[in-house]
């Protein structure tokens, strides 16, 4: 039968029958059907995903399961696959966090260095609040931007006040939505009877709702909700219920009845802006502070003056040659000063001659030798004791002598100047040396040599006044004393007797010699040391400077060493 039926189908359908059979076999054979589907599955998925999201929905649980199973088997594999996207994502997140932190830090630094922040720190210390709390309170601005007075039963807007900055949309509709939202929350979540929505908040925007029996006040606040806002709302509501009891209870939708509440609502806007600090001047505090400031100022002025005085005093001491300031200390109105003092310097007491009224001074002195030129000069003056005509000066440790000086002093000085501390050399270029004994000797010699005794022709005796002889002999004795003193040896005086041209030379020589001896004898008699005198006859006229007279004269031998 089957074969017959097949043949009939074969006759009717021809080759198509074979193809149908083949197609059926392919569909029935899992292997073959899979191959067919595999050829078009991608295109089919693509085509379907263009139509709707059903593929994603269908695949989602499978993919979830596949991921879980993959993690269970080997978490590392998935981690490695995710690594290229996780890395940048984490980095980005970290960098954003760091950026935020830096900005915060910057802001914090700026804030913490401003005078404002110092005031906050002071306030924090004063009020016992934490600094961060105060910063928050002070930096977060707030403003009550809008106030809605809403009839509670009908949700109709009775009055609306808003600040210039507020972004107001149709307030009539908004006020209705406030109660609708409360209803929505009541319906959506189980709430207790009597619970009421009192705050709506999104970001820094809040709506504070305060309800009375017949009216609701809604305040739209940007920023921190001020603490006393709710009290203010309550007070306003209470007064409204008091003043407009009947109008509220029986509100017929005419807001004009409530036109006079504008001020009350406006007050909420104004009063809840950041209140400016009261500008009243606390006179008592100001006066007290002024007195304290004046007192402190005067005291400071005095001590400043006193310290100026001390500084000036110390500076005077410092400038004084020969004084070296070691240390100074001021305590209990006594200025203790310790210093080095050169014996030739002025004493510290002498230097600060002015009287100190405000404090006393105690000196501790240590001696020292200063090498300052001025002091070295004083020291040299003391040690060398020059005569009044000698000027003494020290320039860069060199002793410069000028003017006139006694030769004796000079000779003596040559051996003594190295004993003066602080001297390294001497300069006598401008010093004129004087020898007074030699000058006296020259004068004495002139007087002595001017002495002439006249004789009569052929005579060897002559009249001489004893007064003259005494004076002459004293002169000679003095000259000898000067010579002994100056040169350390006696003076030699030649007594020379002269004759005129008459007579024979031998006679003349005899007469001259006699005349000299005679004079010598007179001088010796008058007290002149005999050894100083030597008598000669100057008979040779040609060699005796042409003197041909009957005289006897004295010639002093050259007074050199």
């Amino acid at each position, binding site marked *: 039968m089957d074969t017959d039926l097949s043949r009939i189908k074969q006759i009717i359908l021809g080759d198509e029958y074979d193809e149908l059979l083949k197609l059926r076999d392919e569909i029935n054979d899992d292997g073959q059907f899979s191959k067919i589907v595999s050829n078009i599955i991608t295109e089919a998925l693509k085509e379907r995903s263009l139509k709707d999201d059903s593929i994603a929905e269908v695949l989602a649980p499978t993919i979830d399961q596949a991921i879980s199973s993959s993690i269970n088997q080997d978490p590392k594999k998935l981690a490695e696959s995710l690594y290229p996207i996780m890395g940048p994502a984490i980095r980005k997140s970290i960098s954003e966090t760091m950026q935020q932190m830096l900005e915060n830090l910057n802001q914090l630094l700026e804030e913490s260095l401003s005078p404002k922040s110092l005031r906050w720190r002071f306030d924090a210390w004063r009020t016992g609040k934490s600094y961060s709390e105060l910063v928050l309170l002070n930096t977060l601005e707030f403003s009550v931007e809008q106030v809605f007075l809403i009839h509670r*039963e009908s*949700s109709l807007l009775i009055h609306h006040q808003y600040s210039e900055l507020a972004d107001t*949309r149709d307030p009539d509709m908004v006020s209705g939505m406030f109660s609708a939202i409360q*209803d929505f929350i009541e319906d959506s979540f189980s709430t207790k009877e009597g619970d009421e929505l009192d705050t709506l908040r999104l970001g820094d925007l809040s709506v504070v709702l305060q309800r009375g029996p017949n009216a609701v006040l809604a305040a739209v606040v940007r920023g921190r909700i001020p603490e006393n806002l709710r009290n203010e709302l309550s007070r306003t509501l209470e007064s409204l219920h008091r003043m407009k009891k009947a109008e509220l209870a029986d509100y*017929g939708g005419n807001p004009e009845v409530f036109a006079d509440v504008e001020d009350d609502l406006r007050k909420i806007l104004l009063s809840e802006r950041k209140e400016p600090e009261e500008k009243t001047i606390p006179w008592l505090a100001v006066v007290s502070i002024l007195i304290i400031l004046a007192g402190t100022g005067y005291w400071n002025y005095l001590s400043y003056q006193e310290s100026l005085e001390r500084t000036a005093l110390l500076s005077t001491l410092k400038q004084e040659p020969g004084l070296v300031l070691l240390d100074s200390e001021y305590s209990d109105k006594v200025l203790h000063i310790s210093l080095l003092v050169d014996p030739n310097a002025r004493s510290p007491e002498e230097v600060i001659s002015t009287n100190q009224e405000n404090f006393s001074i105690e000196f501790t002195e240590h001696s020292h030798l200063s090498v300052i030129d001025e002091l070295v000069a004083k020291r040299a003056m003391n040690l060398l004791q020059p005569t009044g005509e000698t000027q003494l000066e020290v320039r860069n440790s060199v002793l410069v002598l000028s003017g006139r000086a006694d030769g004796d002093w000079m000779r003596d000085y040559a051996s003594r100047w190295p004993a003066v501390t602080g001297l390294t050399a001497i300069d006598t270029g401008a010093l004129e040396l004087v020898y007074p004994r030699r000058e006296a000797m020259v004068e004495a010699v002139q007087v002595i040599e001017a002495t002439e005794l006249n004789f009569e022709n052929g005579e060897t005796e002559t009249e001489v006044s004893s007064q003259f002889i005494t004076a002459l002999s004293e002169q000679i004795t003095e000259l000898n004393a000067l010579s002994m003193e100056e040169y350390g040896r006696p003076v030699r005086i030649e007594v020379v007797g002269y004759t005129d041209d008459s007579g024979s030379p031998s006679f003349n020589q005899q007469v001259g010699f006699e005349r000299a001896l005679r004079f010598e004898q007179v001088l010796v008699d008058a007290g002149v040391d005999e050894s100083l005198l030597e008598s000669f006859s100057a008979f040779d006229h040609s060699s005796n400077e042409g003197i041909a007279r009957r005289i006897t004269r004295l010639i002093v031998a050259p007074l050199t060493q």
Partner: protein
Amino acid sequence: MLQKKICLLGAFSVGKTSLIQRFVSSLFDDKYLTTVGVKIDKKIVTVDQQEIMLMIWDLAGEDDYNTLNKNHLRGAAGYILVIDGTRPKSLDVGLAVHDKVKEALGDVPVVVALNKADLIDEWILDADQLAKLEEKLPVLRTSAKTGDNVELLFSELAARLQ
């Protein structure tokens, strides 16, 4: 200006929202209606040369799953009951709603909108039922699609408000 709250009530999908959508000023998106359950619109109408601001509360339609939230009715000065002429069930629901509202608000003005007047050929409302309704309440045939009688609908209600 006088303000009045009115409600728009009726069965699910009778066209309440469509009815007011065209000519009221709308602040809120329709999604409020599905999430919060109410959408509030505003319409100013003139009655006897006096302007009245109508705050129109468009309430979610009532059906087997949604029941009327009586809180939304509070303070309403009147309401519009919307019935879909193509759906007899919307009349039943509408009447039930009417009873509920009367219970909650007392005897406040109401106007019935027989909506979808543009599809009057497809209306399958019982003539008896309609007659009874018209006897009881003021009825207007409206079309949200063409705008027919919509303006009149609100004016009618406004005129009846105290």
